[in-house]
Every structure is written in structure tokens, then in C-alpha cells.
């Protein structure tokens, strides 16, 4: 199929349709409202469901309801809206319901601002709601990757019967890039409905719940979920390397749009004779810890730098990944301010002075 120029938010919406997700619930919030506006037009055209809820709390529970019927369902929001959905996200994880949640992140905490940020890393990766659960978290760095990961998200949600969250900073939603969608004829996989509440005629009722008052049963459920998360760690780690070579002295770890800015910095640093590569996690849970450790402990690597549009959130996972084998430094901006390649370069040159002694 030919490439089309599309805004990230609209491309995400179209990708969901290509994945057969004909159920969408939303509430307006900057900077992702274009997804809702696009869906309001497109859903009737494909016979799908579009509903603007009365709040993100309502939307979270509408997704629970739709997901329980075995249909592919998703929502999109931005940071404060995602916070309001945490209750239902926890319930969906507990009840093992597949769905896709997109967070086009803006700066926080609280009301924060409306400009791009990556400050919801902890919320997405460590569990913003209560209880022993994890989301499968994916982070695109281009509009094309947002399309690809959106389609993948629905497959992964079905595979694990678990909510999948795609997080992109505000730029992913707002920028326009050329994208290619899979062929319209390539039918999405029909979701497995063998667990879904589809009407109990001529069969035993199926019960979808996160309530287990018997502690033995609740523990069973928690370990069952845990096994799933362990399986994700084995099968769903995704990352990309950029200019990672044996002679590298430094390695940047960065995700999303921030990683693209780091690529520019790396290109320029290379010209100045600095040997440096980029490790870009694509799956934030499961986090590519083993792979980061492997690259970080290569003989020539002196130190790592994590670059984020937040105050060192992913850095904690990087530090845990390298288990003290290499120093990990941090550079970041927040509040909607995006680090420039020059700032990243300056930080690396500073590190070069420190670690090349």
C-alpha cells in the first residue's frame, strides 16, 4: 500500500481499525483529542462503536464491559485522563481482559501542562493502579512505529489476555509523518472468544472477575498473572540498537521520540570522534534488562547515559539492569521542554572528560 502523510493521532486511530478494533471509547483531552475526532467519523463508516463517555472513569469501565464480550476494544487519553482510568485498568488486569490503552503523554504531575513529556513511565510500567499486576507497555519513536505497535498491541492483548498500553509523548500524537498501513485485505486475526461472556446458552457460564474473597483463590490468581508476566519477559522483549559497535565507549539508553533526538546527537558526536551508540527499548515492560546488561558490559564501554523527558524514571530500570557493572548517568528535561541534540552532546562530552581519565 502507498504511503500517506498522517498526523500521529490519526494514524494510531486508523491502525486500530486495521487491527479490527471496532470498539472505541474516549473523553476529550489535549494532546490526543484528534483520535476521538477521527474515530467519530470513521467508526460509523465501518459499523463500529464510537462513544464519548462522561469521564475517563466511565471510559475505563466501558472498556471493561466491551472487552468482557470478547471484542477488540481500545481507548486513547493523556496523562491526567490515564490516571482516572487506573481503577479499571487494575480491574481489567485482575480479570484478565484484553484491551489497548494509548497514553499520549503530557507533562505532570497534577494538571501539569499540555506539552510533550515522558513522565508517566512509572505509572505505565510499575502499575498505576493497585495490586500485583503489570501492563505490557510499548513505546514507539515514529508515527510508522506507532502504527505497527498499535496493530501488534491488539495481538499481544489477546495473546496474554492482559491490557496493553502504548505510550507516546505528545510529539508522537501531534507530528505528521509518512506512514504505510497493512493491506486492507489482510484480515486481522479474529480474537479468541473461548473465555468471553458471550451468552451461556448450551454451555456453562463463564465468569469474568477480579474478586476472590478466598485468600487461597486470590493467591492462585496472583501467581497465574505472575506467570503470564514472566512469559512476557521471555517472549515480548523488544528493542533497537543504533550504531552499537564493539569499540563504543558510551551507550545512551533512551526511548520514544527522545531516542530520535539522541540519534542526531550520536551522529554529530561520531563526527567529533566520540564512539557512542544508542539502545532504544521498545517494550518498556518487559524491559530489555538482559540485553542492556550485555551491551553495557562490553569491554570498551565506560558509562551509560539515560536521556528522558522526565526526572530519571526509566533510569532506575537501567541501573537495575547493569547491576553496578557500569556507571549510569542521567540527562533529562521535563514540563514539556524537549532536550536538544546539543544538550545531549554536551552531556556526553562532559562524561567523556570524567570517564576518559
Amino acid at each position: 500500500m502507498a504511503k500517506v502523510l498522517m498526523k500521529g493521532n490519526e494514524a494510531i486511530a486508523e491502525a486500530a481499525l486495521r487491527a479490527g478494533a471496532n470498539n472505541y471509547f474516549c473523553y476529550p483531552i489535549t494532546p490526543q483529542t484528534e483520535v476521538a475526532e477521527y474515530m467519530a467519523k470513521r467508526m460509523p463508516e465501518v459499523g463500529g462503536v464510537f462513544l464519548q463517555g462522561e469521564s475517563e472513569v466511565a471510559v475505563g469501565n466501558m472498556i471493561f464491559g466491551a472487552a468482557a464480550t470478547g471484542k477488540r476494544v481500545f481507548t486513547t487519553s493523556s496523562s491526567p485522563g490515564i490516571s482516572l482510568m487506573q481503577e479499571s485498568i487494575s480491574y481489567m488486569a485482575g480479570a484478565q481482559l484484553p484491551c489497548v490503552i494509548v497514553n499520549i503523554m503530557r507533562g505532570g504531575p497534577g494538571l501539569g501542562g499540555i506539552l510533550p513529556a515522558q513522565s508517566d513511565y512509572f505509572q505505565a510500567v510499575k502499575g498505576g493502579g493497585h495490586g500485583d499486576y503489570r501492563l505490557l507497555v510499548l513505546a514507539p519513536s515514529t508515527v510508522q512505529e506507532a502504527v505497527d505497535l498499535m496493530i501488534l498491541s491488539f495481538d499481544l492483548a489477546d495473546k496474554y489476555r492482559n491490557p496493553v498500553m502504548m505510550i507516546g509523548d505528545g510529539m508522537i500524537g501531534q507530528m505528521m509523518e509518512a506512514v504505510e498501513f497493512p493491506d486492507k485485505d489482510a484480515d486481522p486475526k479474529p480474537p479468541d472468544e473461548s473465555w468471553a461472556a458471550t451468552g451461556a446458552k448450551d454451555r456453562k457460564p463463564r465468569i469474568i472477575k477480579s474478586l476472590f474473597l478466598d485468600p487461597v483463590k486470590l493467591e492462585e490468581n496472583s501467581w497465574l498473572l505472575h506467570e503470564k508476566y514472566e512469559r512476557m519477559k521471555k517472549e515480548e522483549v523488544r528493542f533497537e540498537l543504533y550504531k552499537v559497535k564493539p569499540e563504543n565507549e558510551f551507550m545512551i539508553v533512551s526511548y520514544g521520540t527522545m531516542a530520535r533526538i539522541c540519534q542526531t546527537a550520536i551522529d554529530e558526536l561520531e563526527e567529533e570522534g566520540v564512539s557512542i551508540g544508542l539502545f532504544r527499548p521498545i517494550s518498556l515492560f518487559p524491559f530489555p534488562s538482559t540485553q542492556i546488561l550485555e551491551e553495557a558490559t562490553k569491554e570498551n564501554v565506560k558509562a551509560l547515559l539515560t536521556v528522558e523527558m522526565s526526572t530519571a524514571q526509566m533510569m532506575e530500570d537501567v541501573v537495575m539492569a547493569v547491576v553496578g557493572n557500569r556507571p549510569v548517568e542521567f540527562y533529562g528535561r521535563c514540563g514539556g521542554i524537549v532536550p536538544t541534540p546539543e544538550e545531549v552532546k554536551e552531556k556526553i562530552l562532559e562524561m567523556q572528560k570524567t570517564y576518559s581519565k
Partner: protein
Amino acid sequence: MTTTASTQAPKQKSDVILHYLRPGKKFPNVWCPGCGIGIVMGAFIRMVDKLGYDRDNVVMVSGIGCSSRMPVYMDFNSLHTTHGRALAFATGVKFAKPNMKVVVITGDGDALAIGGNHFIHACRRNIDITTILINNNIYGMTGGQGSPTTPSGANSTTTPFGNAEKHFDPCDLATAAGATYVARSSVYHVPQLEKVISNALEHKGFSLVEAISNCHTYFGRLNRKGDAVSMINSFKENAVPVGKYQKMSDEEKVGKFSIGLLSETEKTEFCDEYQKVVDAHRNDGK
């Protein structure tokens, strides 16, 4: 919360508005040229001044949305809160400081969608808060999505083929939920708007003023209602005094809305009732 020092009220009538604003700090404002929200703000300021309230004793509370920006521009104690939940914050303020005049400024999306639950419970408690709900039938700040007052069939960016949902009448809702002063006016009917705002402020108990306003930028454009002036003129044409409205047939009511005092009842106020509980049971010797 920002506290401001009380200053001498201005003598010149034309200086009244300026006296209550935060010029230099918070301007220019976010409202589109021709927006009706400023008309409501002007009416509110004139009434607060006329009633002679000490502005150190007034708290303005709002949520998120175009209308919720209003307390930012006015020099009262102000509390700018989460989307839809200004009334919950305001309840906290009023309950902690029952002698303060607590005013909530909200919009149709803020008060009736995400804040619907808080709205009905504030009405039910009949807590002494004045709520001014500026109804422009759409979400303005995020760019024209449908709200709970977007009329059935009307266009918005999330109802591009016409709204399939039914819409709320906030005044009916408030009355049914227990609010004890409910009135509606529009940004065309400024003298009446001032009168109902003044009466609402003086009313003991939960009071609601719904101010019908124009969002020509989104609602007007998407529904071919013309510019700000033609939308405000349409309020003149479509507003019907409540007494006359009640005698109209359902057919005659189509496209019209009632204005004036819609309901006023006397009921015990929540803070007073709670004080009675304290008075009856207090045993700490104070």
C-alpha cells in the same frame, strides 16, 4: 490558594471591573474574541461590588475548561482544580470555612459530564455554594467536542453526523437533585443575568445560575449559527420568560429555552445542619 489584600472600592463606575481583575498578571485571556464568558464575568463582578462583599471573604473555585479560566482573571481568593470536580473542592472549602462566600464557575462539559456526580450531590446536600454554569453546548478548550448539553442532532467534532444522544437540562437536573435556587439567563439578557446572579449569591443554600452563552468558534461554526453577534441575537429570539414558557405546547418549545427564576425553595442548609449535630454532641468542653 491566593489571598489578596482588600483595597478601597473605586468610586468611578467604569473602574469597577478593573478593580476586581488581575491586570498585567494574567492577561491577555484565553477566550476567543466575542466569547460570552467575559459578559458573565462582568455581570458577576458588578454584582459582587454592588452587594458590597469583602473580597477577602470570597472564594472562587473552578475546574477545567474555557469558563473555568474565569477565576484566574479575577482578584479573589481562587482555587483552580481538576476537571469536573470544582464542587468537591468547594465543598471542602465551605465546610472548613462556613462563613466564606464560595462561588463555583463551571461549564457544561465540566459540571455535567465528568462532574455530574459531584454536581448532583452538591445540590442534594444543599450546601451554601453559588454555582454559575456557563452553557455554550460544547467543549471549547479541547476544540469542539460534544458535551452533555450539545442538543440532539447538533454537530460537534465528536458528533460529525449529528448528536445521537439526548441532552441534559442542567436546571431541571439541579432542581430535581435538591438545589434550592435555580435560575437561567443568557449573555444577551445582561440585566436579568445580573439580577439572578445577585439573588443566587444572597440565597442561603445551593444556588445555580445557568448562563446560556455562545461558542461561535466551535458550536456556531459547526452548526451554521453565524458569528458571536448572530448567536447572541439568537438568544434574544429564543429565550422565553419562564411563566410564558410553561404555558407553551411542546411544539412551540422546540428551539426555545426558558429564562428567569425557575425554582426557589426553602430547605435547611448543610453546614448549619452539621453545626447542629456538633452543638448537640460536643463534649470537649469548648
